[in-house]
């Protein structure tokens, strides 16, 4: 806190014009401090790995070869399913091919992905197999490889969690900050709005959305996002109410800083603690909500793979422990990574922290 006040003093109160550079400066400071927190960095690395895995999924697990020769040409069918490529590389000659037959044909498939199974190709002869050499995480009730499904589901789960929580964060922080800072009429109106949204019948909203809109995942994320921001708003409001009475706020105001500056540069970084905890759990919680919805059939439509969907199969086939353990591990890794990251962010952005590992 001393830093930002000092900076304001130096600049002679002209906080506005140098806002951008100072915000960059704050971000850089936070980043530098986080780098020394090994656990937070570990969390970041894990999350980055998850994103990379979801991007590379088509070449890690696929029943199409990475490289194949077909009628004299060399084709890259697996690569062509990856995100930038799938929009402009198309192989119409392969569209009716049954890749299950070609999988082990040496003359055609030159290189198969390490996990030669597709997440959506069913195989009724291999239903509910336990984890073994072929299927590292077993198969589900339609014979699909669980590892492949979890891998492709990573993208969906991450997206659901991040987008839904992102929406909640943005709305929640904004409304909470305004309500807490300005008080008075703004607080009254916004708090009532918060109360109304808390009381939304979430289930009916989902039912209505599912029934009327195309059941794609973005609609679900948005519904989760716009109904879950109230918790964050409540915490943010409470923090703002508390912090606006602190000395540094008075000081900043005395220096002539504008309201928006005070809110975003001064109070907000101090208020993040409960918000961050909520947000990091929110990401995992969104995945678990998606699981419940998919189990009810209201979430991601089959055959799209999702962690929640695999858990839903687990519910039906409760003896198949691999259908629960592996998604559970995946959720656990995600929750832990996000929480470590969140805690690291909180510690690094805490202006009062004298950062020393195992400090008291």
């Amino acid at each position, binding site marked *: 806190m001393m830093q930002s006040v000092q900076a304001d003093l130096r600049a002679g109160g002209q906080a506005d014009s140098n806002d951008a550079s100072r915000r960059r400066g704050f971000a850089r400071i936070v980043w530098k401090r986080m780098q020394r927190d090994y656990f937070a960095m570990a969390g970041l690395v894990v999350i980055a790995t998850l994103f990379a895995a979801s991007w590379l999924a088509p070449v890690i697990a696929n029943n199409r070869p990475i490289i194949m020769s077909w009628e004299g040409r060399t084709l890259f069918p697996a690569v062509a399913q990856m995100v930038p490529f799938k929009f402009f590389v198309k192989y*119409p000659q392969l569209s009716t091919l049954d890749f299950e037959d070609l999988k082990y044909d040496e003359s055609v498939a030159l290189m198969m992905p390490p996990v030669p199974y597709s997440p959506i190709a069913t195989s009724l002869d291999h239903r509910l197999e336990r984890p073994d050499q072929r299927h590292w995480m077993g198969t589900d009730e339609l014979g699909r490889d669980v590892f492949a499904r979890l891998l492709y589901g990573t993208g969906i789960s991450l997206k659901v969690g991040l987008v839904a929580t992102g929406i909640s964060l943005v709305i929640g922080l904004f409304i909470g900050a305004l309500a807490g800072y300005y008080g008075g009429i703004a607080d009254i109106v916004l708090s009532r709005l918060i109360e109304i949204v808390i009381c939304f019948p979430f289930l009916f909203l989902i039912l209505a959305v599912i029934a009327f809109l195309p059941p794609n995942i973005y609609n679900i994320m948005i519904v989760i996002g716009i109904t879950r921001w109230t918790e964050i708003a409540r915490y943010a409001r409470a923090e703002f109410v508390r912090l606006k009475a602190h000395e540094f706020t008075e000081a900043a105001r005395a220096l002539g800083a504008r309201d928006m500056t005070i809110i975003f540069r001064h109070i907000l970084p101090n208020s993040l603690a409960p918000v961050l905890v909520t947000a990091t759990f929110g990401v995992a919680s969104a995945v678990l909500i998606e699981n419940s919805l998919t189990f009810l*059939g209201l979430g991601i439509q*089959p055959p799209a793979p999702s962690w929640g969907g695999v858990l839903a199969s687990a*519910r*039906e086939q*409760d003896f198949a422990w691999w259908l629960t353990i592996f998604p559970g591990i995946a959720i656990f890794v995600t929750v832990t990574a996000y929480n470590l990251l969140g805690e690291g962010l909180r510690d690094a952005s805490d202006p009062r922290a004298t950062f020393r590992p195992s400090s008291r």
Partner: protein
Amino acid sequence: MRRVFGPLVIIAALCAALSGCGKKAQQAQNAPSDSLLASATPRDGGTVIRRLDSECKTLNWVLYTTAYELFVLRHIYDPVLDYDVNGNLVPVLAAELPTVSPDHLRITVKLRSDAHWSDGVPITARDIKWTLDKVRDPKIPAINKAPYFEKLDHLEVVDDHTVVWVWKEAFAPAIYAITQLWPIPEHIYGQGDFLTNPANRKPVGSGPFTLDQWESGQYISLVRDPNYWGEKAHLDRIIFKVVEDDAVALNMLKAGELDEMRATQGQWEKQMTDPDFNAHFRKVDYYFPGYNFVAYNCRSVWFSDKRVRKAMTLLFDRESVNTKIYSGYARLVSGPFYINSWAYDKTVKPLPFDPSAARVLLAEAGWKDSNHDGVLDKDGKKFEFELNVIAGSAPAAQFSQLLQEECGKAGIRINIRSLEGSSFFDRIDKGDFDASMLGWRLDFDPDVYDTFCSTMTPPTGLNHGFYKNTKVDSLLVLGRKEFDQNKRAEIYHQVHRLIAEDQPYTFVNAVPDKRPVARKIQGIQISPMGPYDFWPGANYWWIDETDGRVASKR
């Protein structure tokens, strides 16, 4: 942060089995490996604990809506007429079989003089009339029962123990309809508001058992009525426990807290095979009237051509589903009747799995991939449609994905739309769908007029897909008027052949109910409708403790 949101298992294709009529003997296929029929002498005493998949909302016979309520009601109330274990009509509250006038318009039923309610008041013809009036009362939501009596003109009470059912026209399912009217006591329900009568929670009935306790949402306990007018039951108590979750139910079964339950396919195959389990439980499975199918909207651009509908069936590998998902515990179905009934034409074989033949048919119908995008099209319209399935039904989820995959290879893109019950039925009742996957539960009487007649389209009837075949229409009308069963069978066989040719549905399969039952229970009989929905049903089970596990004290 609490995950306040969670699933409840919704079971598709669940509903009351409505007893039906079959004049010939119908024995269930798949008889269990050891004999269940009563061989030793029954002993009195003991308790049987049965599972309810969901709570009973009411024990009012006119207002009930689910199969589970019927389980309980069948012990508390008696029918006038019902079908026995062989599918033959038998009198229960009636003194004898009914007499039918030669023009089939008047059916006379005589009641026993010794039948009485559990409070001692005699059961009279007035009770029957009163119940019927309630069923047909527009202010009472008895919509499950009322449709049976649409063709009824009126009911005459000749004297205290005789009624005459007078019909508007000669109606073959009339006898069956009569078996659906079980009297409730006028002297109890006649006072106060019918819908909120306390007897809905504490019924006064006519059956071998009476209600002892009802802990809402947890269990219902019935006890043997020592004053029952007929043959007394053997069991001291029957307890119905509410267990919604299948996995929990299996655990309770193994722990001795349940004596029988309905099992899922996965449990049946994988968790009920060890010797210890078999030492304590019998595995009882049986077919019941019903089948699973995919309905097509015959007015849509894709499915108006019957070749396309046939191609869809050819693309669905039902045999694999049967052998691999059900391990042979299901039967393929080729038509709209119960496979064990006389109306089913066994010479009509289900279509095979033949993707190349399907492709030929699709091409014949004009569907080609003209722009090479992997999806068939015709006149600029892509072959891409929505398949509605009921949320929470594991078989529907599996079948739909299998169908989707195979159709994808043939150039048909299916988008699976999983909808929860209310939304699903809303759509289908309005005829607002492309294709839907669901199941029918049938009456024993094979009249399918409401389902396939072209006048019974939404919102009037159950012909959701707007199927129209005038020959089928006239046959269905004839079937309702024909009283000779052989001739009637011939009519329905013809209907079966025509519908199989037209494929308004893809008929998928009939899946038997699977129930593990504690070995200590004796006297279990299986009718064509299963072990419960006939007379006397489970009323005369008894316990032989030496043959199995002792009932748990809980």
